[in-house]
């Protein structure tokens, strides 16, 4: 047997516990030993599960170690890492959780996972000076509505029907305090400097923040925000979001060659 076949059989048996150990393995006694092959299987599965538990600590605490281990196992079976950069493993665990029926009784679990995924992404993201107040103040007033702000590379917005920021915060300590916030929360994860910031946005600004981070022009984003909540305050929201580090220091202004009456 050539090495390619040996390796393929080894890899297949590692990931599928229903398969026997690959042929061609032996021991000093001269007979194969399933328990020895199981060490590798165990290293792979426990190693990946530990990687997920390290990144998704709050998710693990919410559902308990045993449930998390089984959920992680189901995820790992369908999603081995695509690269050796383990800190990126689990980027799509939130989507998996959303479709994982046994977790349906905890409907906020996927959004909590989205915060945790965003925090690690922000921690390792590209260093970038956020958009400053000076740059905002220098924008030409007559074309302000056409300005598009680039999202800061670390910024992620998680909008949830549940108070996931409060839930996340409650699990940063040994003892979990009761969560009293009703309704949903929009949580902005940023890293303007070296430290990751996690912020619950004023609820009336959630639509605006979401539209801007998806690349909408200021005028369109403001119109959407006002339609959702008439108490929306454009200036306060923009200065506030920029202050948290939501935007990168690049600004583009659309050419005003479309019809003049839109919006």
């Amino acid at each position: 047997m050539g090495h390619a076949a040996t390796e393929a059989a080894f890899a297949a048996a590692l990931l599928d516990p229903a398969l026997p150990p690959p042929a061609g393995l032996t021991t000093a006694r001269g007979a194969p030993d399933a328990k020895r092959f199981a060490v590798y299987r165990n290293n792979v599965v426990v190693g990946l599960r530990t990687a997920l538990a390290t990144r998704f600590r709050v998710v693990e605490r919410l559902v308990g170690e045993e449930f998390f281990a089984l959920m992680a196992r189901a995820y790992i079976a369908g999603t081995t890492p695509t690269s050796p950069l383990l800190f990126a493993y689990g980027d799509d665990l939130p989507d998996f959780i959303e479709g994982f029926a046994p977790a349906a009784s905890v409907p906020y679990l996927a959004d909590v996972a989205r915060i945790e995924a965003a925090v690690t992404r922000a921690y390792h993201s590209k260093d970038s000076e956020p958009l400053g107040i000076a740059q905002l103040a220098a924008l030409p007033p007559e074309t302000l509505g056409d300005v598009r702000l680039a999202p800061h590379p670390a910024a992620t917005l998680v909008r949830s029907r549940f108070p996931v920021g409060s839930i996340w915060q409650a699990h940063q300590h040994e003892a979990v305090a009761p969560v009293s916030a009703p309704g949903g929360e929009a949580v902005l994860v940023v890293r303007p400097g070296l430290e990751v910031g996690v912020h619950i946005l004023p609820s009336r600004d959630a639509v605006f923040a979401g539209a801007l981070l998806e690349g909408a022009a200021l005028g369109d984003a403001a119109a959407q925000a006002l339609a959702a909540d008439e108490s929306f305050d454009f200036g306060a929201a923009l200065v506030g979001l920029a202050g948290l580090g939501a935007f990168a220091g690049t600004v583009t202004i659309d050419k005003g060659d479309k019809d003049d009456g839109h919006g």
Partner: protein
Amino acid sequence: MNRQTIALALAGSLASAFATVAFAAPLPAEKMVGMEKCYGIALKGQNDCAAGAGTTCAGTSTMDYQGNAWKAVPAGTCTTMDVNGHKGMLEPMKG
């Protein structure tokens, strides 16, 4: 409203936001520190958790937990939290 009217309304709103936060714009970036106290709610996480998983060249003697994921029931802190009426665990899934 045409684009220019909107733009000027936005500019006015922005100008008063600068005024309310008592800035004489333009402000240096370092003055932005502390802004987060004025806007939204800053949450405090454990910074070492932010790194996520590291690689390891070690094996483990911790055993893989074998069980049926489809019969498993969430049993952590979710069982004691009341989140928008979702209190505790519900029925385990059939299967």
